[in-house]
């Protein structure tokens, strides 16, 4: 068939080449390198010769570094942030999907945190989480609980550090979910609601039988994206807690950067990259399965 379209094939390769080169050079090649390096003893600060060390980096990464704890933290992070953030995004989208004056303004306001770079968000929230009764959050909680709240040093409290990072992330990301879900809501034909109303469905039933099924694809989309982002958390941790205290807020990426960059243990960092990739791949595969199982709906 392509024989009949020589011009098209040439043009296609012409168009494809820059992107292809970029993907190969900056994604595939380094990933291959990560795999190779993860079996070596490469250190950034070592003049010693390179050696093959087998799987010892993987073994050590799990036994001696904070990787395992970091993975668990990421998992916990995802388990909390994904549902909460999605529910919040959905709630906001539902609120904004009605003909209210000032919808666009509210939408912009809720989306505003999304445009905030995480490095900035982290710095601002460090202040919000300031310890002592004068800290913004402590003071607010004190006010809300009529003084019953014991002020704490959130970022340095092994119990609170991870929730603090979660809260920051939820605040920053809910607007994104909202926009995607709002677009999804607006794509649901109004007539479906009208049909349901004529059929005698209450608002709640309409939500269950029209809104939720209609939002299935956008919901899957935001859940997947948020899950993957949950495993990529780095900036907040680096700036707010540096993984502490006691690894309580450490994350995979943070551990990886700390190992490879701060301590120069590149090979072990590479091993962590590979582990991290496998985790993400697992999530992506589960996503594909879920999508395919009921993919015929559209």
């Amino acid at each position: 068939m392509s024989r009949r379209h020589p011009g098209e094939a040439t043009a296609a390769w012409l168009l494809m080449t820059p992107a292809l080169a970029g993907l190969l050079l900056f994604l595939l090649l380094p990933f291959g390198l990560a795999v190779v390096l993860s079996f070596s003893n490469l250190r950034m600060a070592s003049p010693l010769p390179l050696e093959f060390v087998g799987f010892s980096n993987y073994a050590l990464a799990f036994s001696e570094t904070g990787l395992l704890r970091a993975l668990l933290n990421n998992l916990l992070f995802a388990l909390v942030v994904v549902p909460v953030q999605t529910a919040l995004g959905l709630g906001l989208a539902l609120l904004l999907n009605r003909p209210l004056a000032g919808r666009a303004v509210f939408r912009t306001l809720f989306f505003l945190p999304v445009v905030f770079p995480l490095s900035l968000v982290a710095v601002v929230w460090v202040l919000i989480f300031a310890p002592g009764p004068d800290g913004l959050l402590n003071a607010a909680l004190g006010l809300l609980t009529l003084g019953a709240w014991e002020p704490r040093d959130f970022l340095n409290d092994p119990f609170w550090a991870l929730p603090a990072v979660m809260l920051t992330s939820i605040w920053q990301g809910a607007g994104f979910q909202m926009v995607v879900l709002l677009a999804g809501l607006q794509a649901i034909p109004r007539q479906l609601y009208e049909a349901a109303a004529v059929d005698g469905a209450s608002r709640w039933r309409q939500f269950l039988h029209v809104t939720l099924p209609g939002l299935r694809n956008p919901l899957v989309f935001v859940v997947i994206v948020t899950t993957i982002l949950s495993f990529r958390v780095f900036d907040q941790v680096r700036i707010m807690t540096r993984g502490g205290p006691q690894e309580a807020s450490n994350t995979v990426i943070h551990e990886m950067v700390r190992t490879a960059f701060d301590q120069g243990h590149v090979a072990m960092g590479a091993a962590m990259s590979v582990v991290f990739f496998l985790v993400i791949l697992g999530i992506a595969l589960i996503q594909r399965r879920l999508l395919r199982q009921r993919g015929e709906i559209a």
Partner: protein
Amino acid sequence: GGDVAQPNGPAGDQRSLEIWAHAGREEERRTLEAQIDRFRAERPEVRVDLTWIPEGSYNGQVQAAALAGRLPDLLEFDGPYLYSYAWQGHLKPLDERLPERLRKDLLPSIVAQGTYRDGLYGIGTFDSGLGLWGNRARLQAAGARIPDGPGDVWSGDEFDALLEHLAHDDPDGQVLDLKLNYTGEWFSYAFSPLLQSAGGDLVDRAPGGLASGTLDGPESVAAMAAVQSWIRRGRVDPNLDDAAFAQGRVALAWGGHWNFPGYHAALGDDLLLLPLPRLGETMVTGQGSWQWGITRRARDPELALAFIAFLLRPEEVLAMSEANGGVPATRSAVQKSQAYGPGGPLRLFARQLEEGYARPRPRTPAYPVISDAFARAFQDIRHGAEPVQALGWAARRIDREIRDNRHYPDVAEAAR
């Protein structure tokens, strides 16, 4: 005819110097910039490119640049990294080139810190002083005994009791600032002297020495337990705003020479400089600060050395010392220093360095890992982890690092 080179023209003799320095306090940065200007005033043919690098990622930057072959000619680095850089072969030894007169003038702590396996690789223009800042009024109100020199310090028990006394009159009971808001190197620098005073250390300093048995030995564990108890009892201010002492929220602050300008401005004559407490027989304190070294790839090592020599002139040493409060690195400058000279308010720091109370950090390329492991252990202990376990974990990590690097054979020497 503009392209015909003039024999004595500036173009022919243009020499340039690329410098990386850490982005410290504002006065410090201004002073270094002024020093460069003065240097260039003397040597107009010299071009100087100065890059400020944030402290947080300094070592990473150096390593990355080394990897890419993009190190500058003249490099400032925090003392403890010297051994690692030297082992990796990034630095040129300075011994042969350094004028004997200048070398003699250096404080012994400077030489000790800059030496790795018989070579001098780095020279600081100032050293650091670590001590306790006290609020005279509050200490007196609590009836505290005021030590009067490095030989006469509070014992651990005395210090504990003092904290409780002070806490009695304090609204929130937090009376001590350990600068917990600091990150990175601070913890090893500020608290390893406590281990040493108690008889422990970060690592066994004998050749081939490891951390196990030392860092997690009973002495070290006891020292950390003491620190943990201060925190646990609520005596320590988290100091998030870096102003606990200056605002008078605490009576005592672990700190160093760099705190002086701010604290002096805030407390005036109420400001007291005190030695650290001792946990064993004698007090031990920290030393070491930023140093200058010439990289192996420097294009013009003579010029780089000339710049270091320029910075070591007494008036330049004093200028920097005045800017950042650091202890002048040369004896001549110490003598002239208002702060550190006899009768000066910071005399204690100079004495600690000159009289051997200060101990350099372990002079091994493993130091960054040691420091990081200890800092993590410290954080864990701060948050309630058992010192034995936290320190044990750190010791194992350090030992593995040392073994992985085969006790740091002298490969750079061979490769030279």
